[in-house]
């Protein structure tokens, strides 16, 4: 079992691996060129305002649509009940007439 045995010249190998090395020429410039110019700067005020307006408009439009749909449902149910009432009165008037005729 020689798993835990230290390899020979380990110190030397590590020194080689971690030795100080200068970056190639222009490395720093190339990195900085890839970084967005104002990465950490907040968006301009007009942009924030327009985003807020757009978000509010979206919420308002969606809300209005939902409300309209709800109102339509209420009106439809009401119209349906009126129709059922009208048909019931018509039907029962005919039934009364039929009963009177056959009496």
């Amino acid at each position, binding site marked *: 079992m020689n798993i835990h045995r230290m390899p020979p010249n380990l110190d030397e190998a590590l020194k080689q691996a971690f030795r100080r090395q200068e970056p190639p020429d222009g490395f720093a410039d190339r990195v900085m060129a890839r970084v967005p110019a104002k990465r950490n700067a907040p968006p301009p005020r007009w942009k924030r305002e327009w985003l807020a307006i757009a978000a509010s408009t979206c919420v308002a439009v969606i809300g209005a649509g939902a409300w309209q749909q709800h109102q339509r449902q209420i009106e439809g149910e009401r119209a349906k009940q009126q129709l059922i009432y009208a048909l019931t*009165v018509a039907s029962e008037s*005919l039934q009364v007439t039929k009963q009177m005729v056959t009496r």
Partner: protein
Amino acid sequence: MAMKWAMALAFAAVACGQQIDFSSLDKLAERAGNKVNVVNVTLNEEQLKFAGGFLSDQDEKQGTAKSLVNGLKGINVRVFEFDKPGGYSMSDMDGIRSQLRAPGWSKIVEARDGDETAEVYMFTQGKDMGGITVIAGEKRELAIVNIVGPIDLKSLGSLAGKFGIPREVMGMGASPAPPKPPASRKPLPTRPKPE
């Protein structure tokens, strides 16, 4: 301009004959001393289609109602419930009956039993049925129904007593309940003689 067109169309519909103008009945509700509950349902073709869209095909009764409404151009219903007998007289119906003497209309049933009266008029165009009007009255209640368009009377008759009628949807809110449909009137008490 739009108002003129609407009036012209309304006049045309009335002039066609199937639609009956119920305005002559307004005086019943306004007459001094009358305490009356009035239910007024007026649905034109567009409203019928809209309302029909909310009827379920899954429910047998609603399915029947839906098929009945197909092809109809209007339904007008007035129901009056008076607090005491004699709230109306037969002459109050003259305005309605005069319209039902127009060409196309014919009285197919007239029945009287004590205070209870019923008249059924049918509108025909050639061989086609174009509408029906029913006047059913007893001493405290009066119901007038005008259906514009072809309707299957057998199917219509089969709907009697099948639906519950929530009063709040009739626009009466917390006020007294709408009159019961005529079939619920069992006793036939006396009514003043027709004038």
